[in-house]
């Protein structure tokens, strides 16, 4: 019961999917410490901003149900610790992920330059063709911006990533980016399904325990 609980409730005003979703995706949130991964998830879940959320240690997770294009989706959202010390735990999870949200802080150049490090982790650990969303968080802190939108766009283009700037504090682009990610995940799933129907089923990589 512990696993399915977490954050079942949807934010106000957002359509709630029923208990039995049509599609279930594992989405892993990565990025440097303090870029706002937990705050983003808190906004998605409770539609408010909490400036005093404690640092994530190891992994945390919640379930988010959404209806997109008349289909019910359940997202299993894995929140990871940003500190490098915990990366060996996080890395185990790349294999499980259908999608990865890679977040940086637009007020921190360091967090942006670490995006390349995180991409290499994804490349190393995740399944080929995993859906990746690059998110530049904290657009509400416009005065302290250090990473221009253009740079984020350029990086996303170079690596063919979906890209948004957002703010967990104001709520800007929080649901929008998730809906886009869902569409991407769905398209990816459909493509895999079609492929599977054409050729004899390839041996699937074993999913299961994370160590």
């Amino acid at each position: 019961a512990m696993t399915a609980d977490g954050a079942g409730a949807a934010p106000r005003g957002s359509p709630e999917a029923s208990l039995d979703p049509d599609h279930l995706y594992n989405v892993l949130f990565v990025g440097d410490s303090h870029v706002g991964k937990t705050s983003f998830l808190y906004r998605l879940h409770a539609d408010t901003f909490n400036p005093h959320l404690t640092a994530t240690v190891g992994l945390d997770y919640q379930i988010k149900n959404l209806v997109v294009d008349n289909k019910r989706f359940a997202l299993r959202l894995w929140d990871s610790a940003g500190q490098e010390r915990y990366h060996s735990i996080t890395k185990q999870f790349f294999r499980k992920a259908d999608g990865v949200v890679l977040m940086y802080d637009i007020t921190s150049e360091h967090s942006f330059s670490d995006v390349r490090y995180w991409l290499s982790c994804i490349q190393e650990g995740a399944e080929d063709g995993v859906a990746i969303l690059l998110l530049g968080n904290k657009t509400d802190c416009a005065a302290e911006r250090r990473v221009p939108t253009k740079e984020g766009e350029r990086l996303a283009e170079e690596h063919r990533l979906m890209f948004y700037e957002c703010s967990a504090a104001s709520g800007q682009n929080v649901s929008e980016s998730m809906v886009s990610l869902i569409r991407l995940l769905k398209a990816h799933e459909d493509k895999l399904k079609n492929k599977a129907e054409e050729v004899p089923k390839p041996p699937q990589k074993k999913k299961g325990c994370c160590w």
Partner: protein
Amino acid sequence: PPLHFHRGGTRELLRALQRYIILDPSPLDGRLFLAYPQDSGTLPQSFDRLQFLDDGGNDLVSRFIHDPYATTFGGFSKVTNFFRAALRPPESPIHTRTPQDPSLPPQSDEEPGFELITCGVELGPKPDVTRGPPLDKWEEFLDSEGRVTCPEKIKELVFRGGITHSLRKEVWKFLLGFYPWNSTAKEREDILRVKTDEYFRMKVQWKSVSEEQEMRNSLLRGYRSLIERDVNRTDRHNTFFSGNDNPGLTLLHDVLMTYCMYNFDLGYVQGMSDLLSPILFVTQNEVESFWCLTGFMELVHQNFEESQEAMKQQLLQLSILLKALDPELCDFLDSQDSGSLCFCFRWLLIWFKREFSFEDILTLWEVLWTRLPCENFHLLIACSILE
């Protein structure tokens, strides 16, 4: 009237008595036995504590009294092979003997006299356990020079009932190894003086690093920036850390920075601020909280190591325990792709700090610091939460 046994024979007497009555060592004094009539149906308390399995009552009870260690672990060995892996302390190798040693049977897993059952075992009904009152006396446990006369008794009382809040400040320093149990009051004054000097010597080390120096020290810079961010988000609801410019925040910051100098290889790892905050809240003292933190870290530092081996090991042990205790839950978790128990990572990393109220954590930690009844007791706590 007192009976004297000049040539031994106390054990024989106890054995003979056990044919007629149930004997139970007093929880307050191991040398004192409480006698129960056979038919009273009262299960001895100290046995209740360890009764994992229903093993037919009296025979096990008397063996327990006769030789609690062997009987308890003999009982454990029956629980299943699963338990053996989980109950082994992390450092101890599986086989301490070498196969070359001719005097010992080669690599035998079976201890003589103990039965090993490898399949699942039905656990007996759970015993009723009641918590004791918190430890609320201290002076009377000290001798004239201030030594703690019976540390084991203190630990037992703390294990059963925790510590009354006003005494925590004193007793935690013993539980966390800042003061040895057998130190005199005078020796403790000296320890405090030496440790105070040592603390401030290490504090000066990071305090005196100039901005330019720090520019060339990415490790220190990294630790500092993480600490600054985490101090701002650790237990801010607690009055000791709430509001801006609260002196508690500075203490949290300074003690964590000094810990980096104390153990630079480990440095600061997220989660450590959670370990320090209750200690700081109780001791209300920079130097004492620092040394208590080092004592706590002695128990858990492996949790924070880069390889995360200790954490993986504990999660594995937890899943082994759970397989024996609640196979159905295990199956369910497996079906939900959660059999690896990753969601318990945080529980074990910082000893449930984020899962309970601040007040409850004070009690839970002092209970766990006694290391009773076994080092891996926190895994059993995790099991009971899952239940």
